[in-house]
């Protein structure tokens, strides 16, 4: 049971990253390989603002999210648009985002160096006991902020014009264009939002793990796995998938073996995909003949 609780904070982080993946996939049809490195950049920026410049934690979080949102828009503009114009095959878009990921990673290496950094947590890391379980305030903070951001996202998607436009584009791009929605602007917003989500994930994960220029690879992969579990493009699914992955990892690591933990997760994933090729929470769409 404790393992389940332990899995929640990392689950929240995975959920944020997964949301990033699902957002860009749903609206622009893009599997953004750079999502993990966006998380990394968010973490480093947070480090710079919080540790180096001594701005408050929340301030650092917000500025970091904003900066990365801008970067996300730049990626959409300079890289996605030309590809869309040329009707590039999906895999080419993925590789382009891979190029972006490599560039981001190495810019981070140049700016912040190869040493791992760490952000001290704004709250204590001492476990609070209640009945047989314990949780740290840090964990609570991560879960709380994570959920808060997810709620803001939901509000955005449901109640704002841009959010609704995004959902329209995600459902049926051509119909949305015909109805006068600027699909490319929606894409830009989707990229901005997922980058902001990634940045948040980065800052939240920073007190837990070391920040290195390389961390994007691992966390991006985990977030991707979570998004797929929930059904790629499915927003609530991404959240469910993220928490699910966090908990499963925690259980597998604790109960079975920590070295093979990721192997077990992947094996489970392949099993899930075999049985439900479009993820646990997404309905299998019938092929139109």
């Amino acid at each position, binding site marked *: 049971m404790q393992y389940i609780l332990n899995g929640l904070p990392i689950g929240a982080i995975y959920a944020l990253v997964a949301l990033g993946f699902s957002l860009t*996939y749903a609206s622009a049809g893009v*599997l953004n390989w750079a999502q993990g490195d966006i998380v990394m950049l968010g973490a480093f920026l947070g480090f710079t603002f919080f540790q180096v410049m001594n701005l408050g934690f929340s301030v650092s979080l917000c500025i970091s999210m904003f900066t990365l949102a801008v970067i996300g828009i730049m990626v959409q503009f300079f*890289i996605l648009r*030309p*590809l869309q114009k*040329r009707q*590039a*095959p*999906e*895999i*080419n*878009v*993925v*590789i*382009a985002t*891979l*190029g*972006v*990921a*490599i*560039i981001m*990673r*190495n*810019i981070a*290496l*140049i700016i912040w160096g190869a040493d791992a950094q760490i952000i001290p947590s704004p709250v204590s890391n001492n476990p609070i006991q209640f009945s047989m379980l314990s949780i740290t305030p840090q964990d609570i903070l991560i879960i709380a902020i994570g959920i808060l951001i997810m709620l803001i996202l939901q509000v955005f998607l449901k109640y704002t014009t841009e959010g609704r436009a995004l959902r329209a584009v995600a459902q049926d791009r051509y119909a949305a264009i015909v109805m006068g929605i600027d699909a490319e602007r929606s894409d830009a917003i989707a990229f901005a939002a997922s980058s902001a989500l990634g940045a948040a994930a980065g800052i939240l994960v920073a007190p837990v793990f070391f920040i290195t220029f390389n961390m994007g*690879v691992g966390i991006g*992969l985990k977030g*991707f*796995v979570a998004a*797929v579990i929930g059904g*790629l493009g499915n927003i609530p699914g991404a959240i469910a998938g993220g928490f699910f992955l966090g908990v499963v990892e925690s259980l597998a690591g604790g109960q079975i*073996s920590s*070295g*093979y933990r*990721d*192997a077990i997760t*992947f*094996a489970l*994933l*392949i*099993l899930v*995909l*075999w049985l439900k*090729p*479009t*993820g646990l929470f997404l309905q299998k769409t019938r*092929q139109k*003949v």
Partner: protein
Amino acid sequence: MSKVLSSAKENFLFVVVLIGLVPMVLTNNYYLHIINLAGIYTLITLGLNLLFGYTGQVSMGQAGYFAIGTYVSALLMFNLQFSFWLTLPLVLITCAVGGAVIGIPAMKLSGPYLVLATVGFGEIIRLILLNWTPVTKGAAGLTGIPLPEFFGIKLSSEQDFYYLIMSFLLLGTYIAYRLAQSKIGRTFSAIREDELAAEAMGVPINRYKIAAFIISAMYAGIAGALYGGFSGVASPDNFTFEDSVGFLCMSVIGGSWSISGAVIGAFMLTILSEALRAFQAYRLIIYGVILIFTVIYMPQGLAGLIQERKIRIVARLNTVKPSGRP
């Protein structure tokens, strides 16, 4: 016109002789080492092109088969005193099984789901290699992998490996070419283009998809066996999913729906990677930029670009409308 249409056999012999002469001209061991490495990677890319470029199945897990090849070969040589050559059939069999293991769930998948399943496979292999310490020596990996022998002579120099690797490469390219040009290649392409229609025309698509996975696995496995003898050491760090991504890039940049594309892509990226080594971190940034550039402006890869040039030249000579075959 005659240059374009000269006999395939003559072309082939010409190329073989040319390849044979290289070590005599290029005496620098460092350059030969790069070429040898590129040759090994080309074998992987050949298999990947058949799986991805032709059959349309994305795989970001080829490093897994590459690893299986290296480890199976090395472990058989260490523990059972097999010769290098004797390990090869077993590498092929193990990789064929590996190919089927991922091919079977993969046949229902496409797009990002397929990507993820193949990534998962590659990671599972890497983690097994990392954790199964009694057999694989875990993170420390294998050292002192025996050199292959040819009629009693140990192949140890770069020149020796050059001839060994190039022989395999020529054979591998030939086989891949034959497959691609045949009914099998055509069927693979049909599956990529529209698997539903292919199925309606009688193609047993699942069988072919699994076959494609198995073929690509075997190619990567052989490359792995060669790599073991070539580098002498192997650890799970050599076979990460970043490496798999690298192979996919070689495929795409060279031109995935093309056999020559595999050669071009692997050589170009291997040489480029080395050439930029001096720039350290900037090198990878340049690499990333080139990647993005290629994918936007040369979507069919370098081989596609060359093909289009050829078509345009022939068209100008014949004043016939070019048909833009990728």
